């Protein structure tokens, strides 16, 4: 199939929809802007998506190969080395018993939140702009959680005994300690991983069926197996819709609980700076903050590098996510300020010492950089519709937000651990091999994403199509307006 670009689309659209001249200008404008108002025949969209999956340049393989090497070395080799040598090869010490691994865990769980947020919450609230990129976001959830799981296991001193965290009957007559936030953590992350994988899979089925019908060879077998014999009958669609509806509603509390529970790892501890009642929502919002930033980055890359994606992912989407990011940034600022204020007024001398250490200690630059990256820059950039519709600008903002949110977690974990109630033990933390392992998880995340982009349709075609069917332009007097019909 021939290459496809926006101009070509518009030419076809013009010819396909001859309309009155007076409306032509408005409509043109709407179509250019909104995917939902710029419909293409189903078969054509399917072909476009299939093509995006199968068109692979040597650059892709070069990057993929490089990432494979990084994953093999930074993740698996270094991890093996760390297991055989002990955690001494990391930079942890007394009192910073926790370090970069938990920073990474919190970071990756944060990243994973955006997927659910976009595909579940926006689905529940019927935000139509979500349609082309729910899949891309959900993939982030699953792959992000995989990295979070890796990071948690790296953190364990004796990872080979991880199964002691699982409740299973055993001759020792011992169960995991369900008082421990870490036990909750394990349950929450497992639940979230399972449910988000299910939730990723359900809307994928029609697209897999589509791919099955359009492919040959091993791909055919692959899609055939995964599509579970989906034929697109009315009954199947009803079941699918029902299931998705249930999952969409059910996964939202799971999402909130996961990051709340992650925050309880800290909040439930009797440590100055950690023992805060607001950590739950603060972490959830922080997770969305970094997650939305990551979604935007992924979309910008997908749009920029994959074939036919400029049709599906348009500036309107960056604009919409940009608005969300702006709001989430404000919410984050609110929670940050709230946490800081209340802690400061609490008057506990160790907490005050810690807050002072955050801003004036040797890691003070992080604190300021965090505020600039998480608040100042998003606010300064995202208020402008033009800027927030420009993919590369939003990409950079997303990058900066993620940097800022990483710093936030770094400040909460190792920097806060440096200060405790025993000044004789205060010490700084300098990461060592954790950095490599962190890079390894990042590389593995991208690696998984790239692999997935070759195997499963990144755009939920049926959802886009469904949206396009529901949208139409109507004219009321002189005004052209968009009308959306209820589907279900």
């Amino acid at each position: 199939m021939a290459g496809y670009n926006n101009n070509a689309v518009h030419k076809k659209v013009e010819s396909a929809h001859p309309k009155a001249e007076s409306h032509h200008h408005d409509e043109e404008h709407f179509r250019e802007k909104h995917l939902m108002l710029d419909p293409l025949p189903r078969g054509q969209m399917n072909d476009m998506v299939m093509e995006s999956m199968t068109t692979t340049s040597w650059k892709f393989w070069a990057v993929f190969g490089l990432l494979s090497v990084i994953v093999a070395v930074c993740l698996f080799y270094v991890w093996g080395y760390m297991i055989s040598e002990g955690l001494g090869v990391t930079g942890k010490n007394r009192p910073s018993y926790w370090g970069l691994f938990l920073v990474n865990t919190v970071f990756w769980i944060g990243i994973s939140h955006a997927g659910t947020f976009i595909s579940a919450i926006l689905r529940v609230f019927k935000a139509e702009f979500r349609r082309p990129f729910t899949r891309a976001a959900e993939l982030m959830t699953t792959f992000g959680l995989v990295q979070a799981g890796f990071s948690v296991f790296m953190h364990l001193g004796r990872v080979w005994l991880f199964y002691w965290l699982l409740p299973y009957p055993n001759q020792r007559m011992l169960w995991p300690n369900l008082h421990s936030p870490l036990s909750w953590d394990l349950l929450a992350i497992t639940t979230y991983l399972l449910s988000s994988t299910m939730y990723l899979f359900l809307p994928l089925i029609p697209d897999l069926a589509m791919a099955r019908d359009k492919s040959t060879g091993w791909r055919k077998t692959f899609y055939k197996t995964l599509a579970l014999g989906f034929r697109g009958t009315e009954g199947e669609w009803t079941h699918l819709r029902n299931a998705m509806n249930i999952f969409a509603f059910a996964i939202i509390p799971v999402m909130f609980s996961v990051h709340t529970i992650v925050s309880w790892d800290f909040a439930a501890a009797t440590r100055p700076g950690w023992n805060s009642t607001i950590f739950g929502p603060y972490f959830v919002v922080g997770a969305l903050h970094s997650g939305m930033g990551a979604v935007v980055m992924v979309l910008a890359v997908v749009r920029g590098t994959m074939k036919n994606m400029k049709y599906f992912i348009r500036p309107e989407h960056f604009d919409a996510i940009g608005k969300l990011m702006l709001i989430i940034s404000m919410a984050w600022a609110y929670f940050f300020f709230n946490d800081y204020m209340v802690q400061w007024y609490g008057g506990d001398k160790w907490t005050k010492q810690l807050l002072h250490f955050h801003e004036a200690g040797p890691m003070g630059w992080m604190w300021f950089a965090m505020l600039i990256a998480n608040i100042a820059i998003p606010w300064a950039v995202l208020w402008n519709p033009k800027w927030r519709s420009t993919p590369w600008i939003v990409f950079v903002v997303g990058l900066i937000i993620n940097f800022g949110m990483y710093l936030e977690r770094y400040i909460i974990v190792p920097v806060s651990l440096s200060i405790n109630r025993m000044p004789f033990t205060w010490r700084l933390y300098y990461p060592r091999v954790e950095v490599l392992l962190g890079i390894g998880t990042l590389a593995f995340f991208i690696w998984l994403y790239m692999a997935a982009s070759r195997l499963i349709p990144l755009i939920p075609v049926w959802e886009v199509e469904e949206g396009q069917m529901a949208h139409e332009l109507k004219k009321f007097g002189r005004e052209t307006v968009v009308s959306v019909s209820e589907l279900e």
Partner: protein
Amino acid sequence: MIKPEEIKMSTDESGKWGMVIDQDICTGCQACVAACAMENNISFVGEADSGYGRSMHWIRIERFWEGEYPEVKMTPNQPMMCQQCGSATCEPVCPAFATIHSQAEQLNLQVYNRCIGTRYCANNCPYQVRSFNWRDYERPEPLPNQFNPDVTVRRRGVMEKCTFCIQRIHKAQDKAKSEGREVLDGEFTTACAQACPASAITFGRVDDPESLVSQLAHRGHGVKHLEELGTLPNVTYFKGG
């Protein structure tokens, strides 16, 4: 229904074994630290790791400074070890029950073989007295000949801390039982208390009002560290002076 022993736990006098430390006569000579290391098979970690906050001491002697030269003063040496809290913050956070309260001895146990190394307990210990085996620290032959057979040798990835020399408690109990009597006050003591040249450390039953440690603890002016956190520590400090 609440059992009687649970009611007892929530009161201040919950402990069984306790310690009194007289900071006024502690000279900071480190005899207790050495004795503890020898008794409990504690690894030495070498210069680089010890300077990076990874020393494995189960007991450390803290000192601070007050004032500036020439009116500078060294604050009374403060031996700091596991306070064997009656309501320990380390216990509930361990997901594997590796740090757990001994109902029989009212001590905070660290079960090495159950530990998976989340290090949550160490984070949550307000006294920062837990040490983690960051590596398999080398003790070349024939140094292991010195190992105390009554104490498990720990390897990498395991948390450890002061046990109030639980192996000595068991030994004394075993001996007393074999002779058909109770353990006598002062019959045995911890390695640190036994070594201390100034006898600044006293160990014994705090639930026995007649014991030396109880009598010392009730002299007045005693301080239990970070008691405000509700940890019910079992070590009483006397600053003196």
